[in-house]
């Protein structure tokens, strides 16, 4: 680290340090504080004073300690070797820190984010004399069996709109991330490129264009895919009090969704949860590629007991990594668990800087920061004309489960999809506890064309039908609460019956069951179809005078109730058989009464 002294410590108040005697520091510069060289970021400049937030515990730092500048903003290293790694909030590799410093995270430890010794097999895609631009792929590296890493020319290498010629490019072979692999010439300038580059985490990476969202992000979770779909490039918030299953839902999506790359940010959450992911993911097999899930996953762990300012940075670190893979033409899904902890980190730092608070102590710029973060999602045309997307799935932990608090409210303004978790569902162990009354998705129209194509045109219609039934059920339940179910006629009782079946047989999904944990598009479509057939034929039968008790006792209804466990994703034909039996038994039953 350079020894450029930018100032001296004047005051230490937790992670916020006031620095005096500032000469040439720049805003958002990465600095190190004291002889322990604690990592920090300069967040405020005023005359000869500055405020630095340090990303490590500040114990022992005293007034008069030197503050050293690095001359660059807080950045991440981008290149092969990111996938499968677990980083902390400022992209320090935790495995390496463990090897260097033991089981506890000591202060002042530094390790490069990308391994400098590991050799990667590089395959060039350009030749000497080729004209290239910012963002052009110059070669590829097999990062994992399922991720073909594109080495691109960093987006700010050349002035905007300018091109350059390849002056030199290495041949196929093994190189480390900082070996020069390519030289490009623009006018008189020669620029050397390696497989890695740095990017400041607070600045979105440039793209050519934003595209409309048309593809759904298939999660394999029925309540999400069928009722409240998320589009690739979309944003969603999952708010829920503690114990309602935010993390479980996030884990399920990280496991089974059809994104190419997963960035999972554990922001101020439990240490054991990250251990759980680290333990589970390498063992789990992706149903689409047959490869281990860890081969597409990056973890960022800044647990609740790690320094609060690094928690603030972790969200940006995560989304910058996601954007980097998007620029290579991948569909990336990023899980932020939980954005409330990030907002609280903002609040804590703001409080220590003695800023004027707005609602509940949160700084007035909270909504701006939330908006900036979610706007980095999208379905993009990259600089080299590829299509890639970043979808953001942000958990929100509202205090007391009260959705009217500032973080939930402001997040709602900037996301287009909302999966509200309900405590009473969670108490009844109805998981995922996504409330069908409170949740919504504005992507329904955007993705209905895709879905209709994959469901013989039935998706949107069936979705509307079942949503309507659920709404009618709510009204009926209110009556039942007053007078009991016996007071309702069978035709209305049947609505309750179908909704109950829909909830237990379709909406509930067991994340630990080998078969049930993930449903293919086809299985989901068929399951919903079957439940709606039950509704159609059943109502028909009731009109003819069949009592509901009789319908309920049919063996086939039990089969429907257990189909999520019994019918494998590959065994779709089984649905035909049940559908046939259902139709037969109900028409038969109706036939008895007609005579």
């Amino acid at each position, binding site marked *: 680290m350079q020894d450029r002294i930018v100032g001296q410590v004047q005051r230490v108040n937790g992670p916020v340090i006031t620095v005096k005697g500032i000469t040439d520091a720049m805003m958002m510069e990465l600095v190190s504080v004291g002889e322990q060289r604690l990592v920090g970021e300069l967040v405020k400049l005023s005359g000869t004073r500055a405020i630095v937030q340090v990303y490590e515990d500040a114990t*022992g*730092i*005293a007034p008069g300690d030197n503050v050293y500048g690095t001359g660059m903003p807080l950045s991440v290293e981008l290149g092969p070797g990111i996938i499968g790694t677990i980083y902390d909030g400022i992209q320090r590799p935790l495995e390496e*820190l463990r090897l260097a410093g033991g089981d506890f995270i000591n202060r002042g430890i530094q390790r490069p984010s990308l391994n400098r010794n590991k050799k990667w097999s590089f395959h060039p895609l350009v030749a000497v004399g080729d004209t290239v631009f910012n963002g052009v792929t110059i070669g590829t590296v097999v990062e994992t069996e399922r991720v073909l890493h594109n080495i691109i020319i960093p987006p700010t290498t050349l002035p905007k709109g300018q091109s350059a010629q390849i002056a030199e490019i290495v041949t196929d072979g093994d190189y480390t991330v900082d070996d020069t692999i390519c030289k490009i010439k623009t006018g008189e300038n020669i620029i050397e490129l390696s497989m890695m580059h740095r990017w400041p985490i607070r600045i979105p990476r440039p793209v050519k264009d934003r595209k409309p969202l048309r593809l759904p992000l298939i999660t394999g979770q029925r309540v999400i895919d069928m009722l409240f779909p998320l589009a690739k490039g979309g944003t969603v918030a999952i708010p829920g009090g503690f*114990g309602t299953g935010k993390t479980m839902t996030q884990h399920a999506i990280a496991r089974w969704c059809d994104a190419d790359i997963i960035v999972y940010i554990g922001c101020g959450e439990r240490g054991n949860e990250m251990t759980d992911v680290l333990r589970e993911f390498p063992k789990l097999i992706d149903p689409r590629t047959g490869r281990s899930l860890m081969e597409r996953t990056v973890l960022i762990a800044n647990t*609740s007991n790690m320094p609060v300012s690094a928690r603030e940075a972790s969200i940006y670190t995560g989304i910058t990594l996601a954007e980097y893979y998007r620029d290579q033409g991948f569909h990336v899904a990023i899980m932020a668990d939980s954005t409330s902890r990030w907002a609280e980190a903002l609040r804590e730092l703001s409080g220590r800087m003695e800023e004027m608070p707005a609602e509940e*102590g949160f700084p007035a710029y909270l909504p701006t920061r939330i908006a900036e973060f979610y706007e980095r999602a999208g379905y993009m045309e990259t600089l080299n004309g590829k299509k890639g997307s970043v979808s953001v799935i942000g958990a929100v932990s509202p205090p007391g489960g009260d959705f009217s608090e500032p973080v939930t409210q402001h997040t709602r303004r900037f996301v287009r999809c909302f999966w509200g978790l309900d405590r009473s569902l969670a108490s009844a162990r109805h998981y995922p506890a996504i409330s069908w009354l409170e949740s919504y998705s504005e992507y329904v129209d955007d993705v209905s064309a895709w879905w209709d194509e994959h469901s013989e045109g039935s998706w949107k219609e069936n979705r509307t039908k079942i949503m309507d039934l659920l709404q009618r059920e709510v009204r009926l339940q209110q009556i039942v609460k007053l007078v*009991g179910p016996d007071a309702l006629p069978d035709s209305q009782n049947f609505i309750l019956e179908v909704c109950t079946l829909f909830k237990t047989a379709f909406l509930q999904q067991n994340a630990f069951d080998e078969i049930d944990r993930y449903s293919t598009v086809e299985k989901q479509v068929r399951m919903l179809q079957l439940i709606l057939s039950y509704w159609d034929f059943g109502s028909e039968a009731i009109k003819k005078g069949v009592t509901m008790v009789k319908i309920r006792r049919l063996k086939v209804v039990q089969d429907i109730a257990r189909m999520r466990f019994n019918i494998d994703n590959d065994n779709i034909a089984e649905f035909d058989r049940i559908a046939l039996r259902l139709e037969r038994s109900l028409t038969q039953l109706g036939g008895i009464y007609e005579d």
Partner: protein
Amino acid sequence: MKTDHIIGSPIDRQLLSGREYVGADRIDGPLVFMRNTHPIGYGELVQCIDTKNEVRTGQVLDTADDVVVVQLFEGTAGLTLPGTRMRFMGEPLTLDVSEQMLGRVMNGLGNPRDGAIAPKGDGERDVNGLPVNPTSREYPRDFIQTGISVIDGLTTLIQGQKLPIFSGNGLPHNQLAAQIARQAKVRGGIQDFAIVFAAMGVKYDVARFFIDSFEQSGVLDNVALFLSLADDPSIERIITPRSALTLAEHLAFEKGKHVLVIMTDMTNYCESLREISTLRGEIPSRKGYPGYLYSNLAELYERSGKISGRDGSITQLPILTMPNDDIGHPIPDLTGYITEGQIVFDREMHGRGIYPPINGLPSLSRLMKDGIGEGMTRDDHPHLANQLFASYSHVKDVRNLASVIGEEELTTLDQQYLEFGDFFEKRFVNQSYMEERTIEETLDLGWKALSLLPSEELQRVTEEELERHYRS
């Protein structure tokens, strides 16, 4: 007035450490403001000597080149501005940990309270600890049998878990904690265990109750007690759990013991934090609690678990009384977001004479899923627990309906649910303070309860399990 220091490098500071300053600038509650000192490190240990030559321990809360703020854990009563002497030690606050602390009674700072001399320490440890690298953690999955049906069956405790008890004033949380401490065992063998008990602002009787209970079960020699009672300075409560956990970490990760940490009452701890925060003029968030309450609690609760390659474990059982029985209050709320589940007490159940008055529905154990089932408890356990939750949650609806239309008007099915609910609460949940049930007894009792319902209602268990256990 502002002084400019020429000296500032760490070497100079080492030379200056231990230097004493006479005369404080301002004293406000437990905080002492000092001016014109040498550069003082953040979080440094401070010794304060009063006019009677008594030494109190403190810590630097805020340091600037003109003023230093020190919080004194033993309070500031009796201090005078000119007569106060402060010695800045140049090192963080540490605890001299030792296995010999087992069987001893100490104050919040780890100094003996029982009159005997302090045990010889094995080494100084920073009381704030260091965060465990998430890659070093081992995922806890060893089932602890507490002998209490509602815990073992529905909110299973796992070795290395942090599972708080959310209680209220006047509810038997102390009995439950003592019962767990007495009965907890891991299946398959006796382990080297220890209990670390941290009391924050609780009454003397409560501490006495625990000591007696440990004595009766003959484990007192394996218990280290850190007591900061209701009449001790409230600021001491801030350091008490940190001392306790520092010892627990030493016992678990250096001595290979399985440590159960009982901390009571977390509400008092949080109130002390609020007190300091208000004195320092910090911007409050909810209900006057500081914005960093979450991070601060996490620093305590996260000091639990297991580390791969090391033998021991820390299981935490914090107790907190919910102010006004409100689970949405910031203290239980933030705790629930950090801990791996919660055991929630219900005043109404207590009123009906049910012990332990645990309400199964809001209670939860997050680590349960990996610690139960075949080879750990019994193969039918996961489904059975799931089914009990589902059925019991329906009982609440039925009871509400019954109170509107009367029990006679209910359908036969709903009446069966009422019967199930009664059996569940009175036979499954309810047990005596001295009663210890094996996990098999617990599970069989669960099936007995379910057998009061028709088998079509039991959708969460497999047909094969029904066949084996269901007896209508």
